[in-house]
């Protein structure tokens, strides 16, 4: 079927002028057709015998459809369609409905698109104008890690360290999708840090509850894709729903982040607290009278940790991107419990403090926490953390590293235990005051030997009990 | 036209006398207005391109005098007189030239491009000849709506070389539209003399090519122009089809105020100046019995006053504000009818 006009897509056979078996010459009229634009006759493309009339009178066919088969000199399958109509003229219809023209059963449906024979050809032309365009693209795309505007914006808004995200874009580029997926993964099981110390500055004022109820949020945060999902909660009368406070949310996200980003290695040492306990006993009354607060084990252990950190500066460090930053100052965070949950106020520049100074500072921070007067500045800038959750149910335990630090010490229960000691070269059993001191360290940057040595040294400093009170 | 002296005064109606003086007023006003414009331009109070029609006053006056309200006129750059004859406010016209907000374009375009559609005057663009198809369209509208109006398109012999002119005339001829084509042949398109513009002498000959009649007339003779225009306009209005009137004339000044026209023969200019339309017409008025000295003085005083008032109005008018630059680009679609016809 020829194309009788630029916009014509089909034609109708009005009348066949030949029949099967007829011998025809080139240019002889074969049939009359009718289109939207014009009625005309179709001349034969060559000489030969009409082997088959494919189309019938009255039939409407799309441009390019075969109408008849002419055998030329015994050869078969020269289809009577003019060369120009060998491919369809137009793309198929667009939205919203409608096949263009009824396609009669006999006529094969023309291919959708004008495709060149070699499949590689469209590839070459595919990105128009590919060669010229590629030449204009900048050559140093692979050199640095570059982030698109939207990715930078998302990172800034959420406090994300982009170096933590692996990119699926070309050349390992971090795309918006990568960031979205990363955030999604945090919501589903990781922590989201929002400031350098890992804990957002909490105001001393009571934190207002979030706007959305927790249940709605849980429903909304259903992760996309497959994998494990906790069973959906069915509300039951009597259940108490406590929506996360902002603080709780931050803690939760921090904890998840820490666990997914730092490979925690837990290691524990046994500490003989006998000597240091005695030291404390001797001085505690005078201390209390002088200072106005009781002397606990905490400042002593803290002082020991500070000394050990001086000897092992790599433990007093932060992971920043692809680097470890060995901090000059020892800002020791002391984990404390509060009404709002875990808080870690920081002893700033503890390397310059005596044990008494440490004790005073800890007491002051504890007062602030109790009075709900702790400020963002008190919580920021820590380089190492010491946790003392108390004796009950705490023989020993491994705390979660406070990001972006590389280790965290945790004191266990102080308790009398029978231990084997050596007296004059002979083994004996004695009753000593013991404590398990646990260290979690980040095996990205702290290898086993270092971490263990630090812990060992801390334990020995405590045991030596060489402190001025 | 000329009758026995003395007899005429008695038989003339008062209306006719008034009309004849009106014609004189218009020519004097056009002359005075344009002279002042030329001066203001040299005083830097009017900027941009200024084109004088000095010497051609009889054409604007003679063609436009017989026109009616509602007729559509498309003048070109040398036809400032059309505005005054058709009733455009001289103050607004002067403000237009000075680019003030009270001008017809409100400061948007220069010189005569703002038209005055309240008086049926369509502003031209600088593409000479492009207004002829527009005038033909106006005539088409009059035909379709059975209005008794006509369209008049002015153009110089220079503009007649452009394709738009021929497309317009051809179409008008085919459809016998009520449009009058007025060619002001002043023999020069800027510096290009007639013989370099066309192989013929009379532009009016082209009318025959498009199926209508072209009349040649001495453009400096107001009475001659009037005689032809009154007759031809009546036929066009009656539905006889288009017509062309070619007015032979000469421009006194250069193409624009910046052109000294040194390409022309000084003798040629002097010769044409002896055929100045205003003294010619004054002769006619004198023969009709008017006291020439008196009416000349009266007219000078009147035109001077009108021009001065126009200048005062324009100078006191504020320029447009920068915030207006995007105004009038698009017509609103709230159903409000535009002003003008």
């Amino acid at each position, binding site marked *: 079927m020829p194309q009788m006009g630029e916009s014509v897509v089909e034609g109708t056979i009005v009348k066949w002028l030949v029949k099967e078996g007829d011998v025809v010459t080139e240019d002889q009229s074969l049939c009359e057709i009718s289109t939207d634009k014009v009625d005309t006759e179709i001349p034969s493309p060559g000489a030969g015998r009409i082997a088959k009339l494919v189309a019938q009178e009255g039939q409407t066919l799309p441009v390019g459809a075969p109408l008849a088969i002419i055998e030329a000199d015994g050869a078969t399958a020269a289809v009577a369609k003019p060369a120009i109509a060998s491919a369809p*003229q137009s793309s198929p219809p667009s939205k919203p409905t409608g096949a263009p023209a009824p396609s009669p059963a006999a006529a094969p449906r023309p291919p959708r698109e004008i495709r060149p024979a070699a499949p590689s050809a469209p590839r070459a032309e595919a990105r128009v104008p590919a060669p010229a365009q590629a030449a204009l693209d900048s050559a140093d795309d692979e050199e640095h890690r570059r982030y698109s505007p939207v990715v930078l914006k998302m990172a800034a808004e959420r406090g994300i360290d982009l170096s933590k995200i692996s990119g699926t874009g070309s050349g390992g580029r971090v795309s918006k999708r990568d960031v979205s997926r990363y955030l999604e993964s945090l919501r589903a099981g990781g922590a989201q840090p929002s400031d350098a110390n890992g804990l957002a500055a909490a105001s001393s004022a009571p934190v207002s509850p979030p706007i959305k109820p927790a249940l709605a949020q849980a429903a909304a945060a259903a992760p996309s894709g497959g994998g494990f999902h906790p069973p959906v909660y069915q509300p039951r009368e009597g259940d108490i729903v406590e929506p996360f406070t902002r603080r709780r949310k931050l803690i939760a996200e921090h904890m998840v982040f820490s666990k997914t980003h730092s490979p925690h290695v837990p290691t524990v040492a046994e500490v003989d607290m006998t000597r240091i306990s005695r030291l404390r006993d001797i001085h505690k009354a005078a201390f209390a009278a002088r200072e106005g607060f009781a002397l606990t084990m905490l400042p002593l252990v803290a002082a020991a940790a500070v000394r050990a950190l001086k000897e092992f500066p790599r433990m007093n460090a932060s992971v920043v991107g692809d680097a470890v930053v060995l901090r000059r100052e020892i800002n020791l965070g002391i984990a404390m419990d509060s009404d709002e949950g875990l808080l870690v106020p920081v002893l700033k520049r503890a390397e310059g403090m005596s044990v008494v100074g440490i004790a005073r500072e800890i007491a002051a921070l504890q007062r602030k926490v109790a009075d709900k007067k702790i400020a963002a500045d008190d919580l920021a800038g820590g380089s190492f953390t010491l946790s003392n959750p108390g004796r009950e149910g705490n023989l020993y335990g491994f705390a979660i590293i406070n990001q972006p630090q590389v280790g965290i010490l945790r004191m266990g229960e102080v308790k009398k235990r029978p231990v084997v000691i050596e007296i004059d070269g002979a083994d004996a059993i004695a009753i000593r005051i013991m404590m398990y001191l646990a260290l979690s360290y980040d095996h990205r940057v702290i290898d086993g030997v270092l971490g263990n040595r630090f812990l060992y040294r801390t334990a020995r400093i405590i045991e030596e009990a060489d402190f001025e009170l | 036209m000329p009758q026995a002296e003395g007899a005429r005064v008695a038989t003339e109606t008062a209306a006719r006398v008034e009309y004849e003086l009106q014609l004189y007023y218009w020519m004097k006003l056009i002359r005075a207005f344009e002279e002042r414009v030329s001066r203001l331009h040299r005083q830097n109070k009017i900027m941009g391109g200024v084109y004088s029609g000095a010497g051609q006053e009889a054409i604007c006056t003679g063609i436009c005098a017989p026109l009616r309200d509602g007729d559509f006129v498309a003048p070109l750059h040398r036809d400032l007189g059309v505005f005054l004859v058709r009733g455009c406010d001289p103050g607004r016209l002067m403000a237009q030239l000075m680019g003030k907000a009270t001008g017809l374009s409100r400061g948007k*375009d220069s010189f005569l491009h703002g038209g005055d559609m309240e008086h049926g005057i369509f502003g031209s663009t*600088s593409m000479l000849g*492009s207004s002829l*198809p527009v005038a033909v369209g106006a005539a088409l509208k009059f035909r379709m709506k059975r209005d008794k109006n006509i369209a008049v398109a002015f153009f110089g012999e220079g503009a007649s070389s452009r*394709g738009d002119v021929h497309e317009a005339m051809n179409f008008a001829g085919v459809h016998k539209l009520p449009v009058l084509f007025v060619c002001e042949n002043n023999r020069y398109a800027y510096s290009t003399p007639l013989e370099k513009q066309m192989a013929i002498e009379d532009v009016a000959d082209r009318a025959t090519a498009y199926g209508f009649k072209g009349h040649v007339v001495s453009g400096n003779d107001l009475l001659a122009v009037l005689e032809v225009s009154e007759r031809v306009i009546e036929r066009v209005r009656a539905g006889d089809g288009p017509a062309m009137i070619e007015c032979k004339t000469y421009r006194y000044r250069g193409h624009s105020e910046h052109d000294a026209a040194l390409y022309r023969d000084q003798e040629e200019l002097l010769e044409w100046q002896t055929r100045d339309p205003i003294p010619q017409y004054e002769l006619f008025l004198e023969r009709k019995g008017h006291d020439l000295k008196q009416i000349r003085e009266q007219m000078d005083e009147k035109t001077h006053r009108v021009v001065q008032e126009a200048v005062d109005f324009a100078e006191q008018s504020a320029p447009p504000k920068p915030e207006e630059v995007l105004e009038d680009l698009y017509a609103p679609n709230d159903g409000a009818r535009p002003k003008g016809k």
Partner: protein
Amino acid sequence: MELTYIKAINSALMEEMRRDENVFVMGEDVGELGGAFKATEGLLEAFGEERVIDTPISEALIVGAGIGAAVLGMRPVLEMQFADFISCAFDQIVNMAATTRYRHGGQVQCPLVVRAPSGAGIHGALFHSQNPEAWFTRVPGLKVVAPATVYDAKGLLKAAIRDNNPVIYFEHKRLYRSIKEDLPDADFTVPLGVAEVRKPGGDLSLITYGGTLGQSLDAAKIVEKEDGLAVEVLDLRTLLPLDREAILATARKTGKVLIVHEDRLTGGIGGEVAALISEHAFESLDGPVRRLGAMDTHVAFSPPLEEAILPNTNKIVDAIRSLAAY
């Protein structure tokens, strides 16, 4: 009622001429022949010679006379037989029609429509294949539209006729008889200056108009099925004034934008859209704004050349994939 794109145009003309006696049609072969493509078929019979005017071959006159009639209150619908010939009326369009209201200080309006069959892919060669819209989208005072669907062909033409400004209406001739839609019988218009999201999506925005809408939607379907990509397809519909809000909204939504048009790449309206996005939605971009248009050459006659020059579904698919992978 199911209509083809060209029948929708015809229907719009019929209805508007019935609705408003000031609407009339003028152009070459529009009356007796009913138009080279039959767009004006039946109008002469219905409305007579005075309102359906066959002109000589005079594009400048067609538009110029339209302007003259329009400033006096008529609403002419002028036809350029092929958009390629619009160049012969260029001065009347950009210097006369587009400036009339402006230089007359708002005293008049010029409510006319210039219909121009544009578009390639039909072996039209150099002078029956052009997409000249970009010559006009930079002219203040004009409006330019390019319907891509049957519904819009009718609705936009009606709206253009009712608009009090000069509107250039580019109808894509390849779509004339190749797409059909069921249209409501009741009167409807499509507003000028409003783009339409034809297919929502979150991964990548494809902005297009006219002849490439169909191919774009096909490409979007392919990548959805094979790559799981959700492409949002925005049909500009009006090219002057551009619907800036819609353009920026889709860019901000996905961060990746591919602009596709059948017009040539360089100087096509894609450049303007891209500049708009990079200027006002930069912070949302996750990749460079890319364009796909015809190659910077003339639309050749011979099929292998024409295919190489024009955009098609395959090329659009490749461009989507490339940008999505960035």
